[in-house]
Every structure is written in C-alpha cells, then in structure tokens.
C-alpha cells in the first residue's frame, strides 16, 4: 500500500495534519492502533489558548517563562502567532466553543497566563474538537487504517530517509507495511510508563518515540514530566484544575490547608507528595462551594468521584494524589518538525519535542500545539520531496520474524503485567515530582534488569486475531526503552528546572540550560546535553 503522506496516530495532531495535507492535494492514510477518536485528546477539558493583538506577545512571554529557559523562542512565537488562526479554523469546521452572556466566545484564565485567552467548549473542549475533526476527515474521504499498531519505521539506510512504516494489523494478526513519501508521527506521549499512576488513557506508551530511536533518530528532554496535583487516589482519574480555580481547597488528614492551591501544577504537586511522604493523606475539599454550584461547574468530576471513589463532592472530602499528566519531552525535531536524523519523517503533538513547552507546559497550550503544529506538519510533509520511496527494504521481514519470535520463542516464564505494574510503582515513587540520585539509580537498575528479562516474558494468548495480550506486551517493550531515557536524563540533570525537581540539587544551574539528547548506537543508549541554539 502506497500513499503520499502516512500519518500515525489519530488524535488532534494527526487529524489536523491529515486535513491540511489532503487540502494541499496529497493522498493521505491515517493509521491508528485502535479506532479513530480513541485518543487522549478527548480527555482535554481545560481549553485552547488563542491570543490576539498585544496579547500575542504576552502569550509568547508566558510560554517562554514556563519553559524555564529551554523553550525555543522561534517555535513559541510561531505557535502563538498562529493561535488565533488555529482557533478560527476550528470554528469554521463547527467546533462549538462556549459563548458568554453577550454572545462572544467565552474565555478564562489558566495558571501561568497573564491574560484571559483560554477558549473552551464546556468541560469537553478536547472531545468536541476531536469528534468534529473526525467528521471533517470523513467528509474529505481521508482513509483510516484502524487497528494498525505501529511496529517500526521503514528507513532507507543510505539516504537516512523514511519510506513508510510497518504495522501489526490487529484484526488479522498480520505484519503489514504502508509505504509513503513522507511520514508524520502523532502517536502521543509516554505518561503510560508510570502505569497505574497516570491520568492518561491506556496505551500512552511512547510507541512513536521508541520507533524513532530504533530507526536511528533522536529523542530529547524526556526527563520533563508534568504531574497533576489532583488525581483520584485509587484510580488516578483526573479532577480538573477548575476544581481549585473555582475555590476548592487542598487539606491534609489533620484538616489543614498546606499550600496555596493556585500555584503552578508542579509546585502544588510537590506539596501534595511531601504531605503523603510524611504520612498524611491529602484531600480535595469543595464542600463549601455547595451542591448547586458544583453541579454547574464540575459535572464530569461529580460523576467520576461517584463512580471511582463512591463519594459525593458536595458532602465528602475527596482523597487525591498527584499523578503523571503530560510529557514534555519527545522526538527531537527541527523547526520544520522534521525528526533529527530521519529525512521525511515529521513528528507533532505530545510525541514530539518541538521545544515549545521546555521544562513545563502551560495549561491550554497542548490543544493549541496539536492543532497549530498539526497543520504545519501537514504542510511540511506535503512539501517534502522523497528520493528513495520504493527501494527494497528488509524491515517488513525483520518485523515478521520478531512477531514470530514473540509467539514461538519468548518463554513467558515472567508475567510482564506484574513487571509493568512494578515499573509504574517504582517510577512513581523514585522518578516523581521530587527526585534524587539514589532513587533514580535504583529504578534504572531495576529497569535494565527488566530489559534483560524481556525475552523471558511473552504472551499466553497465542491467537492471531485481536490479540490485545500481544499489543500490551509490545507496548511494554516500548515503555522499557522510553523509561530508560527518562531516567538517564533525570539522573544527569543535576539541577532543578520546571517540572524536574532534584532534592539533592534544588537550584537551577545554567550549566544545564541545554537539551538532553538521546540516541542509540549498536543498540546501546547514548546521551548528552546539547546547547540551546
């Protein structure tokens, strides 16, 4: 199967890129590991940052400030200057953003923003954007390849150019290839490495990042992980920042407030973790807001507290913890969003590190990034002139052999589900919002042991069709690759910056005002710091 532009991932970034590439006259295929719209984009509640007039400069400055010195002014400027056009584009497609009493589009403040610039569609902003983009893709006859799980990029060794990708077609259980003149990776972040301690959906396993690393590309800044301070204690389900924004308190088991609730996510998260580490439980208290106001402001949250904790927000304290919410690092890309070291391969959205969020992300900038940068990725992939598209390539046979090995030679003596849970736990405790050298080294040792044991793990389900046991196993393999880079980055960054906080190096140290860069040579992970351009 051959196409002009192959897009991997069907969240907001992938769909925006697809629509633009199609508009520019390309044939487009979107491959997605489940069904289109089953993406984390649908969970984004807060809103979409868009600035106009003099606020554009303020928006640039706010984003730069949150990036703590490692955001690129050029990329941030591009995104902020295009933010208003990106919002207009969504409106033209019919995304029903909320209106205020005067019939204007409603906006609000988000943490770290100097002005009101976050536009929202009730508390379903991401969902409405995603569903509307999907309808628009159907209208434009964009071809979806659902149930296609990314295995590897097909890269021409001589020209270091991407020619397509291989997938496991999970309906049939077959390894297939899709050839393309250019590829856009939009596979989302890697919060899933913290299994059981993330607000993300299942499958945020960094598949695209791991595939790029295996293909000779580069990843960067993976140690920067944003924690959200208010996730439900048992299930890690997100309780929106709006709960604090509207006046909710955080109290400990002594009934005392212990932090200014309106500080940034990483500061509040650190305070929450400190309380829990010192043996006190932490609760969200919104009882004083009253049932009526809560029903209006936080309808989703009320429902989720009832289902997952069996508690009523109007009358009960809600037990919470901090949980992994967003990953700033990703595939290292240039200003055209082209992956470092792989020509014709673009990366956009949470999987890419376009140097926009730097050491921490501002609320409302993630939906903006996936749409504005998604459109740019679509344009750049369209313009790319491929040189080696149809050359013979052995990737398909290699991947068939690998899947065959998983079925027949991986011994499955070790239950990978237990290891996945264990890895999530130790990462959460030792590579959390408060980190130190000893703790990080401990997890790295355990992780490298798991990498060695990988062929002793495996699958019990030997069916071909819809083998979710197999998919979860390969996802776990990807998390082992990505988590290693995360830990190495966190260990070597002997400073505190943005979301990365080291209790043994509490100050920001400008020796580290640099990007951590990761790549593989002969299967061995290499890392270094690269100065900011």
């Amino acid at each position, binding site marked *: 199967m051959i196409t002009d532009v192959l897009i991997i991932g069907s969240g907001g970034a992938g769909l925006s890129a697809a629509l633009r590439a199609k508009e520019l006259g390309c044939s487009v295929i979107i491959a997605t590991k489940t069904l289109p719209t089953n993406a984390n984009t649908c969970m984004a509640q807060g809103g979409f940052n868009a600035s106009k007039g003099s606020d554009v400069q303020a928006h640039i400055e706010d984003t730069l400030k949150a990036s703590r010195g490692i955001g690129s002014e050029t990329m941030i400027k591009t995104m902020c200057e295009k933010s208003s056009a990106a919002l207009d584009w969504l409106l033209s497609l019919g995304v029903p953003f909320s209106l205020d009493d005067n019939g204007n589009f409603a906006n609000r403040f988000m943490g770290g923003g100097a002005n009101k610039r976050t536009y929202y569609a009730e508390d379903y902003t991401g969902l409405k954007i995603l569903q509307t983009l999907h309808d628009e893709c159907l209208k434009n006859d964009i071809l979806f390849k659902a149930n296609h799980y990314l295995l590897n990029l097909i890269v021409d060794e001589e020209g270091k150019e991407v020619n397509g990708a291989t997938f496991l077609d999970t309906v049939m259980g077959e390894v297939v290839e899709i050839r393309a003149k250019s590829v856009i990776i939009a596979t989302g972040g890697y919060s899933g490495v913290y299994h059981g301690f993330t607000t993300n959906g299942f*499958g945020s396993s960094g598949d695209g990042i791991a595939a790029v690393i295996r293909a000779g590309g580069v990843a960067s800044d993976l140690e920067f992980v944003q924690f959200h301070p208010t996730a439900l204690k048992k299930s890690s389900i997100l309780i929106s920042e709006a709960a604090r924004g509207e006046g909710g308190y955080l109290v400990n088991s002594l009934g005392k407030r212990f932090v200014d609730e309106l500080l940034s996510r990483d500061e509040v998260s650190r305070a929450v973790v400190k309380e829990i580490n010192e043996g006190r439980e932490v609760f969200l208290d919104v009882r004083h807001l009253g049932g009526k106001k809560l029903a209006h402001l936080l309808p989703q949250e009320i429902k989720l507290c009832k289902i997952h904790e069996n508690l009523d927000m109007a009358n009960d304290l809600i037990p919470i913890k901090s949980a992994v919410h967003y990953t700033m690092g990703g595939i290292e890309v240039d200003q055209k969003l082209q992956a470092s070291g792989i020509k014709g391969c673009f990366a956009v959205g949470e999987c890419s590190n376009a140097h926009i969020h730097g050491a921490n992300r501002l609320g409302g900038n993630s939906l903006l990034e996936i749409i504005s940068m998604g459109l740019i990725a679509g344009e750049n992939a369209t313009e790319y002139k491929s040189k080696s598209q149809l050359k013979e390539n052995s990737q398909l046979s290699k991947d068939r052999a690998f899947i065959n090995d998983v079925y027949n030679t991986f011994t499955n003596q070790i239950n990978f589900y237990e290891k996945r849970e264990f890895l999530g736990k130790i990462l959460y405790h030792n590579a959390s919002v408060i980190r130190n050298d000893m703790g990080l080294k401990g997890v790295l040792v355990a992780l490298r042991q798991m990498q060695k044991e990988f062929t002793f793990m495996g699958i019990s389900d030997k069916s071909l069709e819809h083998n979710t046991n197999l998919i979860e196993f390969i996802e776990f393999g990807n998390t082992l690759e990505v988590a290693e880079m995360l830990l190495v980055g966190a260990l070597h960054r002997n400073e505190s910056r943005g979301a990365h906080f080291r209790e043994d190096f509490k100050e920001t140290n400008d020796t580290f005002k640099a990007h951590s860069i990761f790549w593989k040579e002969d299967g061995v992970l290499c890392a270094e710091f690269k100065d900011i351009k």
Partner: protein
Amino acid sequence: MNITIRRFDKRKEPQSIEMSYPLFEGVTLLENLIKIKTTTDPSLSFNGVCRSGVCGSCAVSVNGKAKLACSYKPSDGDVIEPLAYHEVERDLIVDKTKAHKTLKTSYAHLSSIAILENSSKVTVQSDCILCDSCYSACPVMAVNSDFLGPFALTKVYRYTLQSNENKKAIDAIQTSGVWDCTLCGECTLACPQGIDPKMDIMNLRSISVQNGHSDPNFANMSFGDFGFNNF
C-alpha cells in the same frame, strides 16, 4: 459473587461460550476485566482507553443493556456480552466499521459555513463519543440492518443546526433514516452522555417536511378502498 462473560472465538468450537469469573466489588467493570486479563486469563479480549467515559471504546452489553465498562460497577450475576447489532470479532470486541459507515452515508458533517451563534444550540449533540451504545440499543436494527441509527442522525441534526442548511444530508436520511425510527426512545435511555437522539430525529422529521419530503409510511398507508380497485 460472580459475573458471566460471553466469550467468542471464531476459530474455536463452539465459537461462543459463557464463562464465569469472580467479581471484584467496588470497582468498575473495566477494572474487573483488566484484573481478569492481567492475573488469570490474558486471552480475555476487550477494548478500553480513557477510563473516564469520553473515548467511547469500552461499551458492552450488561444484562442486555449497553453500558460503558469504565462507568459501570458490576453486581453479582451480571451477564456481560458484546454490543448488539455489531459483528463480534473476539470476546467483547466488535467490528464498528458498519455502524460508523452510517456517518458517511448520512453526510453527517458540516456542508456549508458554520453559523457561530448557533454553537450553543448543539452543546449536547456535540458531546457524542461514538461508543455505539445507542446503535446497539435500537430495535429497528433487528428488522432493518441498513437503518442509519441514532448517533449518525443526531450528528446530522447537529450540523444542520450549525449551518441552517444541509440539503444533501436531509435527502440522504429519507431512506432507512428518520422515518424508519419507531420513536421508542431506547437510544435516549442508553446514551451515557445524556444525548436525546429520539428528539433529534423528531426534529429532523420536521426539517425534512420543510424541505419538501413526506412521511413515506403515511403516503403508503392504506386507508381501505373496500377493494374497489380490484374491479
């Protein structure tokens, strides 16, 4: 305390069996399924992504009613099956291709310029998560598998409101569409997002009439001619 899951594997004989599993109380059905898969039977197959009721991937049938597995807490004796009116692929995984094709055949998209002031009229309709609960609750599917079904029609209504014009879609929903609905309201009861497809379909009927269409049931209805035509 047990739940029963209808398993399906087209390569096995018999293809379909019922299996009983111990119930983990106090957690959602999705968490129950995950516990079974990761601790006792890794071959149990199901879908689930967001855990919080917005991705639409985990809908199944519980005691004959469509539910999101991530939002439902199971009780002793519950019978879990794949969604109705979908081809079963494996265990609780169904093929949604046919159901989602209705979005294309009904032109369920914006076909002209969006009228921005109308955004607030489609707040509820635009909350659809494509979980297919309404589709699997619709009894019309049993007699007409080509029926466009509730979610596609709700989307047509949404985009008609947003553009005040949608002729191509309105024409497309005259066959196996708005007039085939029995207005039983099962879709409305099944929707986890509080959408009311029955009301949307009734509104689409009015819009259809305004666009010059008529109720074919009414047109074909025999009022009895006492058989005189036979003469």
